[in-house]
């Protein structure tokens, strides 16, 4: 059993960074969902804000790490002569994995770090005031969920493309 350098990077890109991204999302969502001044004490708000800051910052950093490793490390191997792209394009039954799935995912995925960074910066800026400001809290929630939705979509497509033609 041997894991190549390319496969190791594919695992880092998809599983290691993706796992930390999910961890940040889960912690941040739980904190954001319950961040309401009418439900919490002052100490409770402070604790939830700390968790929310950590979750959103982790999610934003991991979103950047995912797209940067994906575009600048994995994508060149995918596009190389004889690589997965060439394999998929050679067979009409698998061509759509590149022309539809991979093309879409590599572009739309770039919006995830933008959305996640916006969510993290709003949390950092407003802090505990988010507990009282419903509008700002709703905007953060939408950004947060959109970043997760885009990342999930890109991750799902990426794993399916990898299944069809792995990077060796």
């Amino acid at each position, binding site marked *: 059993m041997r894991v190549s350098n390319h496969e190791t990077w594919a695992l880092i890109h998809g599983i290691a960074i993706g796992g930390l991204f999910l961890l940040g999302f889960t912690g941040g969502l739980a904190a954001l969902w319950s961040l309401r001044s*009418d439900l919490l004490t002052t100490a409770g708000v402070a604790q939830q804000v700390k968790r929310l800051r950590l979750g959103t910052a982790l999610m934003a950093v991991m979103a950047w790490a995912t797209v940067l490793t994906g575009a600048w490390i994995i994508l*060149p191997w995918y596009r190389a002569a004889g690589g997965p792209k060439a394999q998929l394009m050679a067979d009409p039954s698998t061509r759509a994995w590149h022309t539809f799935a991979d093309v879409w995912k590599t*572009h739309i995925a*770039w*919006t995830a770090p*933008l959305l996640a960074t916006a969510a993290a910066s709003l949390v950092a800026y*407003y802090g505990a005031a*988010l507990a009282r400001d419903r509008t700002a809290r709703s905007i953060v929630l939408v950004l947060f969920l959109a970043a997760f939705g885009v990342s999930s979509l890109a991750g799902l497509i990426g794993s399916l493309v990898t299944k069809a033609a792995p990077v060796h």
Partner: protein
Amino acid sequence: MPTKQAPATEYATTPLRSLDADEVEALEAQIVEAEIEPALDRPAGPAAAVLLATGLSSLTLGVLTGLVAAFPGVESALTISQRVGDLSGVSIITIAVFFGIWGLMTAVWRRSTPSLPRVAAISASFFVLCVVATFAPVIHLIENTR
């Protein structure tokens, strides 16, 4: 001259209004809110700046993707790295627009309070345009018009 005092029985017989559970809860919530940092003590400008930067950079991503699909010259111009392809230029410009607009608008709006929902709605519409423009069938549709 003796001062006139209310008979003790008057106080004793005036019933104190008791608060029900809902009223107590509402008062407690008010106290907690007062202890938390007020929501409106910070201008909305810096928050609106990052929202606008997100929308405009998403729009840039969508527009550049469309231009690459439509014009081979743009595709080669944006191919900063041969190994990565046109996505290298598209992503670098998108990142530059994001941080550039964010910094610029934060400086412009640092003391003002633009309508956050309005800026968010505009940015959301830019994001939707980006999703449409980067959708693979739309890219192929544009490519076929070359």
